[in-house]
């Protein structure tokens, strides 16, 4: 009996390659129907992927335009206080890693061709490699020398420095804060009101050294944030719902055509069972067929969906903007995800037909009128 059981075990394991062969030949001979099934998967997955890629493109574009707006505003606030920067000296005090907006802001300053004196404060602050050649690294107490404006940027605590001393030799005593958090410690607290773009310390204290702080960043109002969040949630629910419906339709389509394939092959299945095929072998055949369909349809659908979404957003916002701003890493992850979803859904769709086929009685093969 143990020998028999071992042989049965072998019978289960060995013919996986045979199953694949049978499936490939079956697909070849029934190419038309297989293509229809694959088209179903392609459409469902293309829809899913076009929504995902569209979302990424939209996010990329809106992120990019937000960045541009923020950099533009920072630049406006700074030049409104300090005047044109070309041929002048600008000091930068970096207190930590620069955000994307700050990085661009610094580049925008550099674009106006001032002489930039760059001081770093704290262990986390490091001049970005791409800027290192264009700026002159100095000690923090030298940063204000001859400067038209000093900008504080980076993610870190406010530098504990005496701005009065630093700005003593400055041409104009202006401190620009790229973030509201990095407030100069020596400045009076009253000046740091949120959303006030400029405030003068000169008027606050009686004989305090006259220098101006400019708050360059703008914190969005709470109700704005809430509204944006609500809108995003609504959109997410809507697209989830639509995607779910589309994928459910795809699954039902695959199940339907797999069931058709089972009835079409009643005799073939019965014959194989008479020849000694196990139920698991029959199950394997249908699961392999359906995963191949899922894989091919998933890859094709992902490609079509991505191209479609990028084309739509490209024609609307311009290809340069869309392709330049989209998060390619996330797009790749979404593509892989879509193919996996296609594969998983196809296998799920084939479970019922595969069970149906594997439970068929082998005597079916003896009946001729099927």
């Amino acid at each position, binding site marked *: 009996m143990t020998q*028999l059981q071992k042989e049965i075990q072998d019978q289960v394991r060995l013919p996986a390659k*045979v199953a694949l062969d049978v499936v490939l030949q079956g697909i070849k*001979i029934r190419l038309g129907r297989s293509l229809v099934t694959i088209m179903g998967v392609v459409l469902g997955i293309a829809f899913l992927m076009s929504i995902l890629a569209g979302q990424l493109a939209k996010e990329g574009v809106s992120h990019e335009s937000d960045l541009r707006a923020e950099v533009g505003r920072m630049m406006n606030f700074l030049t409104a206080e300090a005047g044109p920067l070309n041929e002048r000296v600008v000091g930068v005090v970096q207190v930590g890693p620069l955000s994307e907006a700050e990085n661009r802001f610094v580049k925008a300053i550099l674009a106006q061709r001032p002489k930039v004196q760059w001081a770093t404060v704290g262990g986390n602050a490091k001049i970005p490699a791409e800027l290192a050649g264009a700026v002159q690294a100095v000690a923090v107490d030298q940063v204000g020398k001859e400067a038209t404006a000093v900008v504080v940027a980076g993610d870190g605590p406010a530098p504990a420095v005496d701005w009065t001393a630093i700005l003593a030799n400055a041409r104009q005593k202006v401190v620009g804060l790229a973030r509201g958090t990095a407030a100069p410690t020596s400045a009076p607290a009253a000046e740091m009101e949120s959303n006030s773009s400029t405030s003068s310390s000169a008027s606050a204290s009686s004989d305090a050294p006259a220098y101006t702080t400019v708050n360059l960043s703008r914190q969005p109002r709470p109700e704005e944030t809430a509204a944006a969040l609500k809108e995003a949630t609504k959109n997410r629910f809507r697209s989830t719902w639509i995607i779910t419906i589309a994928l459910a339709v795809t699954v039902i389509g695959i199940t339907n055509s797999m069931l058709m394939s089972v009835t079409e092959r009643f005799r073939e299945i019965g014959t194989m069972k008479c020849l000694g*095929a196990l139920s698991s072998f029959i199950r394997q055949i249908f699961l392999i067929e359906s995963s191949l369909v899922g894989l091919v349809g998933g890859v094709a659908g992902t490609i079509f969906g991505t191209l479609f979404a990028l084309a739509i957003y490209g024609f609307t916002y311009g290809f340069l903007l869309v392709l330049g701003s989209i998060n390619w890493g996330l797009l790749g992850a979404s593509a892989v995800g879509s193919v996996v979803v296609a594969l998983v859904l196809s296998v799920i769709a084939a479970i019922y037909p595969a069970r149906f086929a594997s439970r068929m009685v082998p*005597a079916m093969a*003896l009946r001729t009128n099927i």
Partner: protein
Amino acid sequence: MTQAATPQATAARLERLFEKPAAQQRRCIIRAVDVKKVYRMGNTETQALRGASLDIFQGEYLSIMGPSGSGKSTLFNMIGGLSKPSSGKVYIDQVDIAQLDHNELAWLRCRKIGYIFQSYNLIQVMTCLENVTLPMSFAGLEGDEAREKGIAILKLVGLGHRVLHKPSELSGGQQQRCAIARALANSPEIVLADEPTANLDQKTGAEMIELLAKLKIELGVTIVSATHDLKMLKRSDRILWIADGRIVKTARPEEIDFNSGEFH
């Protein structure tokens, strides 16, 4: 001993003495004991078999006859390990098939039994050789070994020159030859043939019968066929009639008047 030794009596006695032990020595490969099969369809029960018993011996060529609805297919399915009886026992090679689960039944079908179908049932997308090696792969035999064995079997059935043809490129007789080769793939002890000549013309049918008879002698396989073909009946060792779910008659071909009405 006390009887007078007339030549007739001696002959009869010798026949009994020689035939009976010979029959007993032959291994009983299929044994059915009071087999009943009931099909349930909703609330109605149909008795397909009402208690059939038979022994089939190794190397025998048995034909089963019976009108449609007589239970012939049901008995045939049970002999082939395709279904289990509702009551009674079916032993295939001393194994009670009622005790086997569906995987073990598949194992039995794979190694002990070869099937030949009326409509060949070859897998259309595969070549002759692939059709023959398919059951071998179910039995765990693959690669060159399977291929060589497959080619040898195809040569044996006279299809050595059509090894790589697809079934659609073959004539009916050649397809049935291929199906016979496939039935022999795992060297089974029993070959079940379901009206193997019904789809063939007279001449090809006769060739097929000769082939089966040759295989029976050369390979010693037991052949059980359901058939109405006179030529086939004449070639078989024993003929079995089924009617109304019972075995009504068993006879040797030479005992039967083939010109009587029941064959027409």
